[in-house]
């Protein structure tokens, strides 16, 4: 059973406070929403939870069956999607998938890469580089990046940005499936995303 514990987390850049004293706990099977106005620090909080940004105060802990996940192994437990996450746009979608799998040490034959691309609604036969993709197609590839290693925690920052209705349905299906495997934390202000959440917490700047 997995638990993500966020305890009294605060962040400031130089002397400018972003948010203060944010605490919550997310357990396996839950979908947790983080909402707040633009600039309130939702993305910053998500990066702190992902372990790529250090909090100014407080802590984030991952526990798997009561055992703490070491910070250096956190990248294996997390799948991350965000508008500011960039892919290697000189490679094709399939090459990106094989690269992600290679770095993570996951065997990825062509059939597995094709199945993953199909899962997120991308064509499997496009050999052109990702830089030629539309922003919606790039967003779909980011979803593949997040679910490739079947992580117990999915961190989604504005997951449906740039997606058409079919893409939105894919994201929401992935969120529903993730309940079986672990949990999802979504930073969003979109009502259809919020509707997927079991609980929601507001973050406010300087709070």
């Amino acid at each position, binding site marked *: 059973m997995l638990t993500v514990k966020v305890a009294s987390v605060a962040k400031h850049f130089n002397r400018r406070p972003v948010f203060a004293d944010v605490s919550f706990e997310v357990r396996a099977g839950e979908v947790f929403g983080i909402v707040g106005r633009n600039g309130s620090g939702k993305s910053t909080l998500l990066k702190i939870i992902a372990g790529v940004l250090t909090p100014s105060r407080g802590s984030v802990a991952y526990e798997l069956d009561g055992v703490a996940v070491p910070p250096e192994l956190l990248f294996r437990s997390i799948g991350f999607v965000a508008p500011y996450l960039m892919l290697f746009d000189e490679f094709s979608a399939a090459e990106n998938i094989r690269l992600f799998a290679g770095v993570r*040490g996951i065997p990825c034959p062509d059939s597995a890469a094709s199945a993953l691309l199909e899962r997120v609604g991308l064509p499997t036969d496009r050999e052109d580089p990702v830089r030629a993709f539309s922003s919606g197609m790039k967003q779909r590839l980011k979803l593949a990046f997040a679910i490739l290693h079947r992580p117990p925690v999915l961190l989604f920052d504005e997951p449906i940005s740039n997606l058409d209705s079919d893409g939105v349905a894919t994201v929401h299906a992935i969120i529903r499936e993730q309940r079986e495997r672990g949990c999802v934390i979504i930073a969003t202000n979109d009502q259809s995303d919020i509707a997927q959440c079991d609980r929601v917490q507001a973050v406010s700047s300087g709070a």
Partner: protein
Amino acid sequence: MNTTDVMRSIIAILGKDVRSELRTRYAVNALLMFVVVTLSVILFSLAGETVARSVHAGLLWVVMFFAAMSGLARSFVAEEERGTTLTLQLLATPVSVYIGKLLFNTALTLLLNSFIVLLFLLFIPDFTPAQPGLFWTVVLLGGVAVSSATTIIAAIIARANTKGTLFPVLSFPILLPLLMSGISATKIAMEEQAWTSAWADLQLLGSYIVVVVTASILLFEHVWKD
């Protein structure tokens, strides 16, 4: 995470950088242009005159040093500019990223240095090392030492706003001990002195690599994460 996983991850990151470089030519084009232009300036200034062999050593290291300055920062700066730093942070351990980048920079530096030496042999009058074995040992060790220092400096400056200016400014004092030993050992290799005369310089180059790589592995996580 076991050693095999780390090795797989390192090889995948190295492979990604090699394929990316072959497609985009970010670093290679800049480095080749720099080498050709610098060598042309040297040839014009020499105007066919022969100079002392000890001067050859200095000229060779000037070109190798500044070529490294013009290209090696790309390894991390390109990730920062393309916004893929976060992607790598989410994909692999800091050690895997550092060693993958170090191996790529080392391969690039050794290829570049070999190319520079080849051009010197072809175009600089009387550029003939008296002791080829020692000469190539110094070029090899010097190349690895330059890439090990510049890789961690590149990771640091990639986060700064004034990347281009900072790289040579930060690199020069750190590379100074290796430049002095490299030039000294190359001079010995160019002249007909005993191999043993260069032993102290070779030891320094070897120790420099061990110290810089060890310190970099320990420090990289702090540089890599905000």
